[in-house]
């Protein structure tokens, strides 16, 4: 492994036990049932790059997202962040905190990702307090204002509640919160799939600008190949928990190898195909 591989997901497996209770199994004589939501998936992400995981519902992409930020202990394999094993039980509390600060996540729903009872300022300040990143109240306030400006909101927005914002603005707040602890790695779980097209472009552009400015590394989870094309350096295609194809963006989309990837690309709706006008007088 070269040193540039900042994130390393190694033979990751996530197996869920869906069995009935034992008494039910005894009666119906069924064996234990497992769901391999993620099955032996390995990939690396270089520092400052975006790796996209593409798949349909049930492909395991969101499970990998949760595993990669430390919210879901894998049943097999490991997640290495800059050489530190995220799920190493021998780690001290302090070391663990140190790694946590470097990972963040942007979520799908602009509605559920912000606590409706908290003011935006408090939402952004919480990571600062937890990781003791601001020595004084005024430093905290300065940082909150800085974050708001970074994502294109105004300073006065700190006093408002999430419900006063539109979906796109909320997603900006969510991004600002993710940036608060100055992380290096951000997992973006379908960050624009709940947004309207005209707003989606704003958020995607913002994410790209932040990557350039701050040198962020992204794991980008999506079902939308068109979005991936302009966002990712590399793409992995997931199907039923397995990584079936992995390539640099251009070669994957231009010359896909697996039938599944071909089918996905074929069924992606595209504007240029508007030809029906001829079939109807």
């Amino acid at each position: 492994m070269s040193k540039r591989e900042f994130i390393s997901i190694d033979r990751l497996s996530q197996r869920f036990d869906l069995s009935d209770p034992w008494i039910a199994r005894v009666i119906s004589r069924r064996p234990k049932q497992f769901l391999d939501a993620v099955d032996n998936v390995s990939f690396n992400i270089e520092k400052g790059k975006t790796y996209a995981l593409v798949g349909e519902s049930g492909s395991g992409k969101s499970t990998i997202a949760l595993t990669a930020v430390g919210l879901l202990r894998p049943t097999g394999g490991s997640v290495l962040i800059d050489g530190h094993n995220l799920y190493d039980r021998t780690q001290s509390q302090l070391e663990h905190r140190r790694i946590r600060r470097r990972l963040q996540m942007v979520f799908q729903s602009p509605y559920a990702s912000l606590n409706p009872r908290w003011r935006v300022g408090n939402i952004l300040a919480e990571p600062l307090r937890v990781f003791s990143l601001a020595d004084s109240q005024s430093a905290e306030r300065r940082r909150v204002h800085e974050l708001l400006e970074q994502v294109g909101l105004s300073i006065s927005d700190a006093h408002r509640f999430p419900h006063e914002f539109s979906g796109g603005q909320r997603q900006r707040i969510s991004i600002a919160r993710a940036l608060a602890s100055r992380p290096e790695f951000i997992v973006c779980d379908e960050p624009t799939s709940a947004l309207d097209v005209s707003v989606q472009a704003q958020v995607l552009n913002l994410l790209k600008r932040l990557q350039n400015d701050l040198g962020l590394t992204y794991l980008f989870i999506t079902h939308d190949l068109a979005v991936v094309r302009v966002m990712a350096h590399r793409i992995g295609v997931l199907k039923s928990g397995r990584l079936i194809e992995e390539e640099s963006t251009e070669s994957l989309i231009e010359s896909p190898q697996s039938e599944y990837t071909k089918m996905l690309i074929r069924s992606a709706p595209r504007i240029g195909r508007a030809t029906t006008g001829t079939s109807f007088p």
Partner: protein
Amino acid sequence: MTDILLSVRNLRVVFPHRHGDLVPIDDISFDVKKGEIIGFVGESGAGKSMTGAAIMGLIDDPGMIESGEIWLGDVRIDQLDAKRLIKIRGKRISMIFQDPLTSLNPLKTIGDQLVETILTHLPVNADQAKRKALIGLEEVGIDPGRFNAYPHEFSGGMRQRVVIALALAAEPELIIADEPTTALDVSVQAQVLELLKKLCRERNASVMLITHDMGVIAETTDRVAVLYAGRLVEIGNTASLLSSPRHPYTRGLIASTPSVEHGDISTHLYQIDGSMPRLDALPTGCSFHPRCQDALPRCRLRQPEVINKSVACFLYE
């Protein structure tokens, strides 16, 4: 003009609210021709679903059609009483909703729901209705052997096929499909749209396809209407509208949609700044002017009318 099936004239829907009325649909006019698939595209809250609900007479309380007319052929349907509305609904106009999971009654078999619909509208006996239901299932690609299955025994895509069979059961002339594939995976979406298109073409039924996805519009529809903040901003032949959009909003919408066919990591997507105004905070004049790069001084003062049944913008006056 005998080839026009549905004609909507100056439709205005109002929801009374304590800070003044909310107007989710304001002065919308359009025609649906026999046998065509017309798309309605716009962001959430633009009024596209409400348009469908208004035609069906299914606007939720306390909303109401304040003015305007809706004609189905030579019948005016926006003022019908419940009894006559039932003769139209399902029989002449049918509707498909977004979520196939919740569109079907979980406690009744799909067969029962089909037979019930057929018996309501067609002059057939129970046996004939059942036979018709079985044919309907086969047409949408569902094994007729599953006639007695409950909705929860089907996958999402299959369920939406059942919904289509139900919507087509009484051979309606117009089907309003409200985001019929939004809840489905891309690969399933393509199949379901193809099926809907095929069945409607066979029956020469018209479709109003409501969606937020320009790609779906491009691949499915003959004509398209673009809605923004409760108003119709542009309408026209799909191919020409997509290749040469006129309204600044339509232009922006198309330009900001990423494409699987081109672009790379260095691509800066075209973006329309800001977001669609909420109904309780509509700007004066043209609702789009705060986000419009080509706005003229008068855009702030007056609402542009739809010119030549094509575009509502002062740039083309």
